[in-house]
């Protein structure tokens, strides 16, 4: 039974198609509860990224209704979208860091947009960079860091404003096994602090021995 009250993310009969013969998924019903850590998996092109993009309003569904943290996305105006995005931290496979910004400034961006005071922001950035083990590299630029370090910066940027939802789109896709484990551990930590996490990956090994819920997207449908 799907209910808006108990879930932080809710999709009802959601479809996304770019044209009649390019249907990404159709009739999707999905409920994710507050504080849940779920893996979203499926082969490449199954629509994992599209689903995440719908959740942070980078795309609109073709039909159906989506609720995120109690907000109906179809009723959300373009001007209201940034305020929803501040509740969501997004992590990408390609990190999406600004190469001409220092590590500190990359992370600061999330706090600048919400207008947090300089002192408070500095304190929070240092705290989060310490947490991901990059406190000594605040004045470095992304290209001076390794892939794993860059991903940790991206995670720091996504979580520094304490979002209630974290969407991770193949965050370990470019990392070796050791760095992948580090990222998973970081995610576990964030989840333990109360964040709801949707972790999109096509790598089955990441959830082989987990007790977490796994949502499988296949041929435009969900298989749980």
């Amino acid at each position, binding site marked *: 039974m799907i209910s808006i009250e108990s879930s932080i993310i809710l999709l009802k009969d959601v479809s996304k198609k770019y044209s009649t013969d390019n249907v990404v998924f159709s009739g999707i019903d999905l409920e994710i509860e507050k504080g849940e850590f779920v893996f979203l998996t499926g082969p490449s092109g199954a629509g994992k990224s599209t689903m995440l993009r719908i959740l942070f309003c980078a795309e609109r569904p073709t039909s159906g209704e989506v609720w995120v943290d109690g907000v109906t996305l179809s009723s959300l105006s373009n*001007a209201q979208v*940034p305020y929803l995005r501040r509740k969501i931290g997004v992590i990408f496979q390609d990190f999406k860091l*600004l190469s001409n910004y220092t590590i500190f400034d990359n992370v600061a*961006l999330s706090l600048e*947009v919400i*207008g947090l005071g300089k002192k408070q922001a500095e304190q929070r950035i240092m705290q989060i960079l310490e947490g991901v083990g990059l406190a000594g590299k605040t004045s470095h630029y992304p290209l001076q860091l390794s892939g794993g370090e860059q991903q940790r910066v991206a995670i720091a940027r996504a979580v520094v404003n304490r979002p209630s939802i974290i969407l991770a789109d193949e965050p370990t896709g470019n990392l070796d096994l050791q760095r992948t484990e580090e990222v998973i551990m970081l995610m576990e930590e964030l989840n333990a602090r109360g964040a709801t996490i949707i972790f999109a990956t096509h790598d089955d090994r990441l959830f082989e021995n987990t007790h977490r819920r796994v949502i499988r997207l296949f041929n435009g449908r969900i298989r749980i």
Partner: protein
Amino acid sequence: MTLAILCRRAFSDLRQNFCAQLITTMVVSLSILIFAFFTLLYFNLQHFVDRLGAELGLVVFLSEDTPKDRIPSLYQKLTGLSEVEKVTYISSEEAFGRLEKFLKDEKEVLEGVDPRFLPPSFEIQVNRAMFQLKRIKQLAGEIDKWPEVSKVQFGQEWIDRLYVFSGLVRTIVAIIGLLLLFTAAFVVTNTIKLTVYARQEELKIIRLVGATNIFIQGPFLVEAFLQGLMGSSLALGVVFACFRFFQGIEAKSELLRGVNICFIPWQYTVAIIASSVLLCVLGTALAMRRSLRL
């Protein structure tokens, strides 16, 4: 978002994209420079025509049979007119003397001629503040109707020609101004579009972390404001330096002395700067429309 964050971001962007910003500012500056030179030329021509018209004044020729005792009352009547600045009476003898001076070595041709053959006249200098060609024509027409007056003369033909010429220059300046404005708008908008395009990925990321449109657009608008302000100020500074240079030449040259070149009136200077700022800010807002979509 506070103004401090917006300005800090704008100055940080200016530092990071210095070359692109400099190119845009130079494009604005060059366009305004050409326009300001034409405007300066136009105002000086207008000034010259106005001054020439005022200096030419009117010459009121009296009938030969005008009694001499009527002269003081006519003088009083003329000086009482609001458009008149100064009136000088030229008797027939004085006029003859002037003619002799003018003819110099050829004054023998006047031998045996009655020194009173030239009519007495009043030379009228028109009040500059009230100078208008229409009003001068009107005044000449009114004086011409006086019974003692045989003819009123002024450089109407010359003034008319100069006015037609200055009108033509005004039209040319307006057309060139509009063309330059469109060119500047086009170039500035496209230069900004290129800058925005080059930073598309950055804007996308900033949008993803929850930036509002004003957070994204604000620094660009501040930069555009500064580009418009600095570009136009620089151009007007160059024009002013040239103006001072010409003034120096004018002071030293016998030929140009008294031309009294003038600078663009301050109201127009402010309007040029304001238009330049508006052009850059609107150009940026237009160029960024696509970047603000979700």
